[in-house]
């Protein structure tokens, strides 16, 4: 069985090899050119930045992690989430009075912006 198996594969290999040997001159010439183009890569200096890419990526990841850990509120602001501190100010007793005089405080803000106050 194995000998029969091997003989069959050998026959297929021979058929394939004959088709390889019969490649025409134009095709062989193209292969030759391709090979020389590939070998020219050896003369080309490697790009320096590609060597530093893994290290640069790691440093960038560390920096992003540090920023997130150091200032979580910044992330919350960006995401438009009201922080706990803001809620405490709004719900405090003093804030009820502020809400009653909201028009007055709006006027003060506008006046300060225009430089009329003070």
């Amino acid at each position, binding site marked *: 069985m194995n000998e029969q*198996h091997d003989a069959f*594969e050998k026959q297929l290999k021979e058929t394939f090899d004959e088709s390889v040997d*019969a490649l025409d001159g134009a*095709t062989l010439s193209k292969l030759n050119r391709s090979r020389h183009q590939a070998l020219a890569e050896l003369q080309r200096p490697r790009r320096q930045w590609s060597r530093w890419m893994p290290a640069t990526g790691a440093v960038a990841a560390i920096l992003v992690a540090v920023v997130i850990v150091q200032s979580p509120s910044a992330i919350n602001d960006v995401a438009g989430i009201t922080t706990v501190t803001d809620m405490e100010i709004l719900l405090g007793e003093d804030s009820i009075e502020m809400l009653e005089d909201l028009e007055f405080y709006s006027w003060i803000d506008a006046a300060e912006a225009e430089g009329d106050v003070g």
Partner: protein
Amino acid sequence: MEVNTAVFAVSCAGAPSTGARALQKDRQLNQFLAEIERRALRIAEIGVRDRDDALDLVQDAMIKLVRNYSDRAKEEWTPLFYRILQNGVRDWHRRQAVRNRVMVWFGRKPSEDDDYDVVASAPDPAGRAPDEELQNSEAMQSLEAAVRQLPARQREAFMLRTFEGLNVAGTAVAMGCSEGSVKTHYSRAVHALRERLEEHGP
């Protein structure tokens, strides 16, 4: 003359100088690629059914091997080269599938397998008698047709093992799978080919 120069450089320095090493590497790669390129082209051609596309894929594989793996041991080059080439063939099929979908979208007939003209892409006679050439060409056409009917992984395993002569370990590296998978794919491929080719006659 170049050989003498290289030998002189090596013997003078005791250890090979940078220039001599580069020259030696260039020669080794040139020899390796020259030995492998024709079989690689035919394997790629069977995979994509187009000689020009196969030439492009072989050139890409050569460039990537030289650029990325020239520092590896010589023994590793063959499986690495075929791994690059097989990835190229798979990408080619993905691109073809996308292109065909786009062509269907625009109402154009996609390219079909039947459009491939086996006779037109058959090799030149290379000095053999016409009847012998015809016989070989017909045998190869039958073999190519049978190989193309195999599932992709079986086709890869068969071509790398039988046509390129890679061992099981090398084929596993080239295919990016385990040696056990290679054995399974290869065994099934040979079984299927035997049935098809013996049924229709080699």
